[in-house]
């Protein structure tokens, strides 16, 4: 028990003293998770809307595939992205392996099905009276899409928080695609795994506290937005 308490005290010291190895991991995590969330929201929201709103032939099959991808193991995504961006892979010429961009691509693949599937479910459950009301008030197709998404904004925020939680806490992609390179591609989760293996609990706990802090800040901001 003592080593956990000592770990907490050490964690506070590392954070206050701006320990470079701790803060570069924090910076890398924020960069890749923000990038991957922006891309997955920009692509997942319209795809989810189309999937939830329109009826087309392969809709059910597509939903099944998407729902399966919600349980996508991070190491599988890591493997796939590794194969794609390694020097022998089709995207090898872009030299993305062991870069933050490579990790962000993997995390986008992880978050996209979450954002899309949850948005589709929310849109499917929109009150049918909403569309009728909008048509009655003279809304065109574009107005209907924008207003429908705005009406289900709290559900979409929940989708974003869920996807962000998954991206923030994954280890497999960051480890396999990023390579856990100190001061470069080391993220909070890969750093915690490494420090714990080395027996350096204080560093691990410090990073764990930061990870929780980021999650708390994101949720607090969303809660504030919801109140507005």
């Amino acid at each position, binding site marked *: 028990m003592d080593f956990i308490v000592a770990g907490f005290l050490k964690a506070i010291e590392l954070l206050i003293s701006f320990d470079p190895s701790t803060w570069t991991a924090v910076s890398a995590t924020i960069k890749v998770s923000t990038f991957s969330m922006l891309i997955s929201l920009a692509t997942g929201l319209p795809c989810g809307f189309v999937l939830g709103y329109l009826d087309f032939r392969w809709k059910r099959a597509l939903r099944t595939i998407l729902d399966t991808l919600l349980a996508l193991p991070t190491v599988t995504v890591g493997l796939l992205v590794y194969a794609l961006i390694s020097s022998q892979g089709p995207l090898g010429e872009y030299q993305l392996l062991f870069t933050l961009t490579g990790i962000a691509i993997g995390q986008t693949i992880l978050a996209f099905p979450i954002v899309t599937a949850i948005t589709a479910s929310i849109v499917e459950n929109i009150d049918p009276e909403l569309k*009728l009301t909008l*048509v009655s008030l003279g*809304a065109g197709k574009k107005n209907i899409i924008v207003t429908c998404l705005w009406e289900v904004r709290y559900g979409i925020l929940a989708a974003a928080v869920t996807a962000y939680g998954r991206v923030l806490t994954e280890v497999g992609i960051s480890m396999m695609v990023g390579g856990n390179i100190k001061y470069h591609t080391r993220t909070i989760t890969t750093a915690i795994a490494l420090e714990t293996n080395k027996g350096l609990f204080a560093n691990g706990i410090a990073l764990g506290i930061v990870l929780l802090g980021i999650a708390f800040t994101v949720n607090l901001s969303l809660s504030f937005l919801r109140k507005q």
Partner: protein
Amino acid sequence: MTRTSYEIGHIQHYYGDKKVLDIDQLKILQGSITGLSGPNGSGKSTLLKIMAFAMKPSFGQVKFKGRKETPFSPRIRSRISLLTQKPYLLKRTVFENISYGLKIRKDLNNLENRVKDSLETVGLDFQEFAQRKWHELSGGEAQRVAMAARLILKPEVLLLDEPVASVDNKSASLIRKASLAARNDWGCTLVIASHDLQWLYECSDTRISMARGRIFSTGTENIIPPPYDLSLKNQPVKALDKGEHILLPLTDKKDGTAVIQTEKISISNEKKGNRKFNNQATGVILSMLLEKSSNHIMTTIQVGDFSLNLSFSPGKAEELGLQPGKKIILMFRSKDIEWR
């Protein structure tokens, strides 16, 4: 010359395999008030949605002011508005709900005053309600806000689908008043679907009954609605209460509706051993309403699970001692009933 708002020709609509609407012809004149009555599931809401161009009929066409139109056509988008029984209020303030239609048209002139006027039309105080959120309203207030959101657009056509069915008396009265004001103020064409027959008789220029997706003229004809017992080869019947039934003519139509001209129905205070009428059914007078246009008394009579509407002159009603709650005998011949 009176112009036509709608010309509906040979429309049919299906939900899956089920035919829910089958209308050969319907014309609605500009500036008129059309009352639409009929039991639940008779196709009133589907017809109004098609008239609002919120959906396309499976077959047939709807012309608005002489031109065939389709959903989202820019020409009709700002001219026709539909208010349903339980309208959706956007998850915003009352002000934002009412101004939504004007904002998407980028018509922002004098917005606050226009919202204020439309709120006042439905009896809501601007100061008290404008900044309230959608969840801070009662059912009647929400319906009035939805009505105000449509009135502010000054539509050429206002389609009202059971607008007062689930609101309190005060809200119902204000909604009725506001809809009439729309016709009087800017010549709005109104089509009102309602179970409130008194309101329909009071305000409408034309009344239409619906059953099984078909339309019938109220006043001149009455529907004897399904279900029918067609299992007897020699005589189809409509079962009533207490062992009574109405004998219907033979038919080959499986989904036909039995209709009788009002003039073919006689009434009496007691059953007669008269062979002329092979149908003598007991009915109870539900309501008696003065019809403004004809100065006749429209009498609604409950017979079994349906009601018939008969019109009497005040003298005839007095002679027969008609009053709500009174039992009377309706007499008519089965051969006068038509299948449609």
